[in-house]
């Protein structure tokens, strides 16, 4: 052991001297890099990533990956059967470097229903490892590969039907750092997009499974960052401080959609396109193909909340492709001044936008349902809030300065319940003053029925320091009839 170390040191210093002070590590072809040590890979659940490999020598890296099938929430009140690498969507993050020899232990939990395997795009070999890693429930399989190419790579299950295994969440990222490691940054996060095809519509409560027909038609019910509506919102949002450099490891599991990844209000200083070696600079929106990745780096310049979206934008505000980066710290007016002036602009013929009404039949059915209990209203209300309202009014009703008025401790809200019902039903346009701050914006009419409006408003009134008013379905129906 020691001998080899000394020997390689000797070679290394010879290379150094002979090249006249060349700083770069030995340019041995990766496949010929000898590994002299062994270690267990530290793997992390999203949105976190393991420690950088830094200047450690290539090693034999033992990766332990367990496949788990389980039921969890895909949205508030909606259950879905997920299949995963390591118990999360996306799967555990693997971090290695060029020259590592990865010994991969793939374990299929005995309670699982199906066989699985893994195709790592970081592998040079048949099936990316899939051919050697097919594993039945209750079995473990071991295969190994040498990391030759630096980059950020997708891994996924490749068992037939592949689209179903991926569609249920079987994907993740493996980072192969260059030998010298990636340049250090202040924060690193792991975010991966996926499209989901479920037997229920977006937000439909209950327990749902994969819908093959929708998947083949490529019309998803959900497009999500990290496997759940709001997985990276509110308390779980990503955090950074002004002046810090953030690096995002971005992936797209698919199975079908290509992502137009964008951060609202933040230009990406550097993007390793495709997760590969080419670095593009000053990028507004970067394409992440299904089964592809990208690394984005940017310095956060101003405090506030920045939304990560798929800028194929209906997916962001209607199918869940929304995450948040919370930046705290000093507000530098040189970078962003905030609102300087505001006024009313009303071109002729303007009117409030309407969302499509629900079909008649459905309305009739819903009339028959009795008034919900307060407890039910709060549960249903929370779910609806999470689907309909939180994107603008924010998870804790705090709103967004200059754009969306707060619902928390809101004088405007508490002053007039009927008005709140009307606004939810028909939308609102024009200037209003909430807690002493003027807002001049537009809220579309919401396609909620009377019961749902009663539930969501009750939830809002019972939370965040509001006056606790309970709204009844009758109240809502009376206003609708006016």
């Amino acid at each position, binding site marked *: 052991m020691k001998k080899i170390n000394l020997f390689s040191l000797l070679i290394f210093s010879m290379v150094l001297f002979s090249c006249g002070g060349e700083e770069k590590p030995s340019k041995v072809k990766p496949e010929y890099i000898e590994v002299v040590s062994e270690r267990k890979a530290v793997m992390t659940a999203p949105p976190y990533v393991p420690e950088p490999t830094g200047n450690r020598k290539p090693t034999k890296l033992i990766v332990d990956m367990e496949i788990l099938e*389980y039921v969890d929430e895909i949205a508030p009140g909606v259950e879905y059967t997920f*299949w995963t690498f390591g118990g999360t969507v996306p799967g555990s993050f693997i971090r290695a470097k060029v020259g590592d020899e990865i010994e991969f232990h793939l374990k299929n939990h005995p*309670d699982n*229903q199906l066989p699985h395997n893994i195709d790592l795009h970081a592998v040079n070999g048949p099936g990316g490892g899939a051919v050697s890693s*097919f*594993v039945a429930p*209750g*079995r473990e399989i071991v295969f190994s590969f040498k990391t030759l190419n630096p980059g950020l790579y997708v891994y996924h299950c490749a068992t037939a039907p592949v689209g179903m295994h991926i569609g249920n969440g079987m994907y993740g990222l493996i980072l192969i750092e260059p030998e010298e490691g990636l340049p250090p940054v202040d924060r690193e996060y792991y975010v991966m997009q996926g499209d989901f095809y479920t037997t229920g519509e977006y937000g439909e409560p209950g327990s749902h499974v*994969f819908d*093959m027909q929708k998947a083949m038609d490529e019309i998803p019910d959900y497009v999500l960052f990290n496997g759940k509506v709001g997985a990276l919102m509110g308390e779980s949002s990503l955090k950074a401080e002004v002046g810090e450099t953030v690096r995002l490891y971005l992936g797209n599991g698919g199975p079908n959609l290509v992502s137009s990844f964008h951060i609202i209000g933040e230009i990406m200083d550097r993007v390793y396109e495709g997760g590969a070696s080419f670095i593009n600079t000053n990028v507004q929106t970067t394409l992440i193909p299904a089964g592809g990745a990208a690394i984005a780096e940017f310095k956060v310049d101003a405090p506030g909340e920045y939304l990560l979206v798929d800028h194929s934008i209906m997916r962001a505000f209607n199918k869940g492709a929304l995450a948040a980066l919370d930046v705290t710290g000093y507000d530098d007016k040189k970078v962003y001044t905030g609102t300087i002036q505001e006024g009313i602009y009303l071109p002729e013929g303007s009117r409030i936008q309407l969302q499509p009404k629900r079909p008649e039949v459905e309305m009739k059915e819903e009339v028959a349902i009795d008034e919900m209990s307060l407890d039910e209203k709060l549960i249903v209300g929370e779910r609806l809030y999470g689907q309909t309202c939180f994107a603008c009014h924010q998870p804790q009703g705090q709103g967004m300065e200059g754009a969306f008025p707060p619902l928390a401790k809101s004088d405007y809200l508490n002053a007039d319940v009927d008005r709140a019902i009307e606004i939810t039903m028909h939308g609102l346009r024009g200037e209003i003053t909430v807690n002493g701050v003027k807002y001049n914006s537009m809220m579309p009419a919401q396609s909620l029925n009377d019961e749902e409006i009663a539930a969501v408003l009750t939830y809002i009134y019972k939370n965040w320091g509001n006056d606790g008013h309970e709204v009844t379905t009758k109240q809502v129906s009376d206003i609708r009839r006016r």
Partner: protein
Amino acid sequence: MIQIKKIVFLFGAFFFLLTSFGQEEGMALVKGGTYTPLYGGDSISITIPSFYMDIYPVTNAEYIEFLKENPKWRKSKIIRLFADEHYLSHFQDDLTLKPNEGMRDAVTSVSWHAAKEYCKCQGKRLPTMDEWELAAMADETSPDARDKKEFNQYLLSWYEKSKFKGKEIGKTYKNYWGIYDLHGLVWEWTADFNSVLLSQDTRNSAEGNNNLYCGGAAYGANDLKNYAAFMRYAFRSSVRGDYSIKNLGFRCAKSIK
């Protein structure tokens, strides 16, 4: 015409007697036929003679009887070559189940070798994969339900279920042939479970692997929509004869003499 009907009726009655009181007790007759399987390209169609198949999967109770008479297949005696370390993992000792296991549950965690031997001792055999697929393409009312949307959705939703629960036999539907539990209870061994991957015979050409991974899945299959069948083939090709898996049981079949 009337005479023919009578003959058919008599013939039917004879069969009925045979199946009810003969050696084929507990088995159902599956009428043979020709069908195009998932693998092998458009030109392949398979003709299967009629055969008998167990109405239910083999239960723990039945398997314990077998173990009593055949000590070398007990958990403590089994040769590792014939069954891996998960063999009968739901038994607390050679002849007793663990507390929460039911005697009327389908026996699982049995290897292919053990299943084969069990059937042999009953004067039966494991069904071939084609026989199993033929019997299992029936729903309650028709012998071939593969094109029915609800049927495929039922299968897919069972395959999706995450945790393995409830293995008592006879709780799912009775199919066209009178057989229970082919879907929705446990996976089942077949005699030639690994032939699709291993044998080149059923493949139409030498190009490509024709396996069930990635591209191969689209390449070798006749009916792209039959994802449920994909999953069965995938499961079968993931196992070996000594594997003993928590959700994998079996039932026996018999040829008509």
